[in-house]
């Protein structure tokens, strides 16, 4: 049975979608599309874009969630409605009141055109301590790190340098492969 290490499964950073700091959301979307076209090892698609500083160091990550968050119109009233959670209201009631509010609002047709001009650093997520994993870490440890941190991907390090991205989809595929291997040998 093969013993996988993180470096066996990661996507090298050179094949990953990246944009420099200061890029717009539109540029990030194009970078994601381009990386996807060039990277066809598996049928799993890239789902995030890394943001690099001048020294090519990763300073942030834009996942699909951050893209969608950028598209959500900024509205103080929507944020105000969210606050009622502290008064004991359920998520369903919060959603109900938000829906009531949105129905009263006129449709904002240029929502997308204004959003794509926004800068990536306004929405990117800065990696936390638990999102880094060494390239020589075992698959099992990486799985544990993904689960406990509820991460969709981890940044793979070689000494202090980021050399790749370990995606949950690739880890799942490897784990699935191991299971099949074990089943075949029994």
């Amino acid at each position, binding site marked *: 049975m093969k013993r996988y290490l993180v470096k066996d499964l990661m996507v090298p950073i050179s094949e990953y979608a990246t944009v420099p700091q200061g890029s717009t959301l539109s540029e990030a979307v194009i970078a994601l599309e381009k990386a996807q076209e060039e990277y066809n090892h598996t049928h799993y698609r890239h789902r995030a874009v890394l943001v690099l500083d001048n020294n090519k160091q990763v300073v942030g990550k834009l996942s699909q969630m951050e893209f969608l968050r950028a598209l959500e119109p900024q509205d103080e009233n929507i944020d*105000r409605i969210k*606050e*009622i959670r*502290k*008064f*004991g*209201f*359920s998520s*369903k*009631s919060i959603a*109900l*009141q938000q*829906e*009531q509010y949105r129905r009263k609002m006129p449709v904002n047709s240029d929502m997308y055109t204004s959003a794509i001009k926004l800068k990536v650093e306004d929405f990117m997520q800065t990696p936390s301590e638990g999102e880094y994993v060494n390239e020589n870490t075992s698959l099992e440890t990486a799985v544990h790190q993904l689960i406990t941190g509820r991460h969709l991907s981890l940044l793979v390090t070689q000494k202090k340098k980021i050399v790749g991205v370990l995606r949950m989809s690739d880890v799942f595929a490897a784990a699935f492969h191991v299971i099949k291997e074990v089943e075949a040998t029994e």
Partner: protein
Amino acid sequence: MKELERLLDRIVQRVNINLREHEYDVNPLVQKLIPFSQMTKFYAFYGITPHHPLNLQFRNSNLAGSYFLGKCSVTNSLLYKSDIRGDELKQKADVFKYQGYEIPVDEDEEIEIVDSFLIKTLVHNFSHDPETLEKFFIRDTIAMHYANIHGSPAEGSFLGPFSTVDLTTIRDSRVGTFSYIQAGEVSHLDIEPGTVWVRAPETFNFMYRFPLQRLNNYIYFTAGSSPQGIFIDFVEDRKEAFQRVFNVVNLEPSVQVPNSASLDRFAVIKPKTHISDNVLISQRAYLQNAWLGKGANAQEQSYIINSRLEGNDITAHGAKIIEADLGKDVFVGFNCFLRGRPESRLTIGKESVIMPHTIIDIRQSLSIPAGHLVWGLITDEKDLESNSLSLKEFSKIDTRFSKGNMVFEGNGAEFVTAFKERIHHILETNGAFFNGHSNKGHAQQNQKISFNTIQPYPQGEKEGLYPTIIIRP
């Protein structure tokens, strides 16, 4: 005077330390809000009746213009023109019922105010906290103009102008201007202005939040100045009328008062007011050309002007009714502001419930159908549609419901029942159901009341402080 200043600093520090997690500094809000010269100007007074225990203790405090009834103690506090009304406190041997428990009351309940600053605040009812049955405490708390602390022990909290904490133990929290809280128990909450929140955990949860820009026209409070807006202008315009009732010792009522009704001698009554049987008019109420049918009441700081209340109507503490006609059994909650105009009156159908802290301010006639629940800010028919629902329809809610800025979760029928039961209880307590020999309430029991005055040191270091005073039978 120096002692008074030291006292204010001490109170501010104690409140701030409790609110530190909200990074809230009350100092700029309260400094110079009430000039110390005002605090030495007014006498305090207390009531004596055969129906309420007399047990008052004042220590190291200023009590300017404040009123006390029942069993109250005040220590290291500043009370400016506040009403501490202990006529509904629990008495020894009462049994307090709570969630299936029946807890005997060991001694007469006491309102205990320590290290607090209350401005024009009403303290009334009794502690609804089963953990503190005999002490209705208010500690390390600041309450701004026209706040209501109703059956709500408070600790380490700041209550904004025209705010109400009702039947709720509140700790380490800030209640914004014109917010109403009835939630049983809250702690460490920062509640923004214009929040109306009624919650019975596991049963229902009601919330309405005012559009702040529109609310600011009515009441606005920020550091460095006194509260401003239509509410303040309204009460300031009528302030002079109260000076006479507080300056004159023996004041004969200017209207006929039936034997079963009670008109407090510190209320203002202007011509063409009519008082029917079982009516209760509390101190600091203001009535002008008001027709009050049998069993109606006007509680503290309420105003009824050019209006008719058919009977068994409740005008709760701080409520204002102007140019309006109310059918029977209408409930107008705390601090409501209902203003019609001479040519465009407001009509409220019988058995309707106007939620606490509702503003209705119209320039065209508006009619609220009978049996409706009304909340929020209403200036026309469109607002009424967004801010009301028949009690029958409300009772059908069994999961959640949202309309305009209101959201409700839980059981609508339980919510309506809770309100109806409370309304019945208020009428009963106030003596609306008195039949000539039984069902006596405040309207009958508050008729025979004497008032005594007490005054502070007139000069020196202790200027404005009242000496230690203990008043017992």
